């Protein structure tokens, strides 16, 4: 099943399992079913618990905060990740503050889902991966949908805990098929789920056992799918062996699986579609350099998009955003 439908099915299961779960967002009810159709069918079956809202991102998220503090489990859809900026005060000064600043008297477990990312020609304000601005916000989890993590156990785990969460879904994942590990493999790659106790899972994918890999590639979301294709091709065609590490949660990070991989391979390449600088990859570089100084063969390579606006024109957009060729070049350079 394609990932858009997997996400819809996961939300349906959450609504079925837990009467506290509510969905709020712009244009999410039937027959429209959301700008990317993830919620299609849900309002028909849960008319009181799936509600379309006015175009008011700050208030939607703020209302969700009140609902969450009153014991509900609201899941908000922000139509485009670009519009997360309109929720920033609520996220930074309200939702992620309440539990800590009230000394644990309340919890505010809001989940914000949003489609993110480019390569669709939507231009400067409908194509961004703005999650980097939310990385490092204390008490906020940032989780990324991927082609390799089943969304239902992830959503269930988030609903079973009290931290607020931003859940980013790259638009180009929606039409892709979910391929979770089966018999220790995903496609042509060996696949292993790792992670510290209590953490969301991190998947480690490689064509050959880790001991033969000479570089670790750290990626999430759609870029992880691109990276899986690239390391598969490089292994088959050129016997360049990389281990791809794909965390479900990108902040706070469970660094243990990354450090174990890099300790074995001696090199790290990070991949993200957000613009370069002050980013997920630079944080990874800082942590890995600190933890594994002396065991790295070379500096950490951070691959990110050019720090400028995302052009609408197809050729200009693909030149500016991280794509397969950037991943290919970085992995080759690091081996």
């Amino acid at each position, binding site marked *: 099943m394609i990932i858009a439908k997997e996400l819809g099915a996961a939300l349906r299961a959450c609504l079925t399992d837990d009467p506290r779960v509510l969905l709020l967002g712009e244009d999410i009810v039937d027959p429209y079913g959301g700008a990317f159709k993830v919620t299609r069918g849900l309002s028909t079956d849960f008319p009181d618990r799936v509600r379309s809202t006015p175009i008011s991102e700050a208030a939607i998220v*703020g209302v969700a905060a*009140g609902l969450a503090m009153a014991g509900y489990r609201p899941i908000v859809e922000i139509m485009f990740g670009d519009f997360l900026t309109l929720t920033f005060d609520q996220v930074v000064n309200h939702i992620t503050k309440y539990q800590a600043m009230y000394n644990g008297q309340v919890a505010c477990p809001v989940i914000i889902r949003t489609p993110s990312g480019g390569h669709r020609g939507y231009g400067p304000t409908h194509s961004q991966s703005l999650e980097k601005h939310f990385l490092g916000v204390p008490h906020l989890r940032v989780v990324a949908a991927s082609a390799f993590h089943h969304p239902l156990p992830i959503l269930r785990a988030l609903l079973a805990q009290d931290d607020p969460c931003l859940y980013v879904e790259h638009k180009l994942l929606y039409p892709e098929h979910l391929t979770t590990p089966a018999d220790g493999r995903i496609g042509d790659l060996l696949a292993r789920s790792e992670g510290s106790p209590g953490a969301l899972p991190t998947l480690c994918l490689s064509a050959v056992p880790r001991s033969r890999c000479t570089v670790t590639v750290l990626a999430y979301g759609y870029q992880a799918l691109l990276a899986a294709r690239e390391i598969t091709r490089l292994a088959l065609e050129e016997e360049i062996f990389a281990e791809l590490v794909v965390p479900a949660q990108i902040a706070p990070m469970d660094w243990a699986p990354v450090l174990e991989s890099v300790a074995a391979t001696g090199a790290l390449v990070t991949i993200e579609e957000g613009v370069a600088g002050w980013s997920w990859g630079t944080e990874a570089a800082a942590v890995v350099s600190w933890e594994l100084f002396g065991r790295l063969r070379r500096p950490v390579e951070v691959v990110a998009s050019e720090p400028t606006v995302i052009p609408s024109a197809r050729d200009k957009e693909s030149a500016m955003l991280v794509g397969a060729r950037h991943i290919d070049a970085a992995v080759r350079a690091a081996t």
Partner: protein
Amino acid sequence: MGGRTESYPRLVGDPDPRLVGDPTEPRNNRLYRRMRFIRRFEETLLDLFSDGVLNGTTHACIGQEADAVGVMEHIQPGDHIFTNHRGHGHYLAYSGDALGLLGEVMGKSIGVCGGIGGSQHICGPGFKSNGVQGGIVPAAAGIAMAMQLSGSSNVSVVFIGDGTLGEGVVYETLNMAALWRLPLLVVCEDNGWAQSTPVSANLAGDMSARFKAFGIPVRELDTTDVLEIADAAGDEFAALRANGGPRVLLLHTYRLCHHSKNDDNRPEAEVAARWLVEPLVVHGKRLTDEERARIDAEVETALAEVVAKARAAE
């Protein structure tokens, strides 16, 4: 006036009757006592700041005590209050918890939030505050939505000021609250000044029209009389409990003190004129000199004990 709650207003916890009164005390005396309590609490805080005992800042509600006390007359179990940076009076009128609040502002572990929140970030059962303007309004609406979903007749109250009307999220929320008929009471305390800027330089058009544009009923009062405010608030609560749908209590009042600490450039004559019609003066006339003196002395003694306890605490 219809809808006024005559029963003794509930308080959270076990507050000192010298500060909040008891069920046997005549209503007028109790209302005076609670306003006096808030006034002296705020003045005590300012003194403690001057003594260097407190860390950070505070925003006193001196002059606006009638709003807090009048509204809280009608709170019932399960209702919720969300307030702003100038929220001490609301918390004290709601809970009577002087030690918890003073401890919090002093950064002590006995504070209601263990000293983490401080003056602007207070939380207790059914009560929250946050110091960022505007963003508390949708949260209060969300709490109102939870009340609506659970089928209760509870009310979610949010206190804002005239300055908060500059924030866009307020209007986003008014729209949603009206569309969804949420049981939300917005109490807008227009004290004439947003920090150092007068309303005339801050707000275009008619204040009440801003709410009415969403089809939200507005009850507008220009008074510092706690009885008028309590009666009007009683009507608003009754309407909300019966019918839902947001309502606005727009109270034109005055802040007699500076915005936070030592930051007041308002005309002295303007402030002096408002001291003549402040809530304790207006309502105090309904008590005898002896009644006022006795209540004042009881509040003073009880507050001194609170200060001593808070100072001695970890």
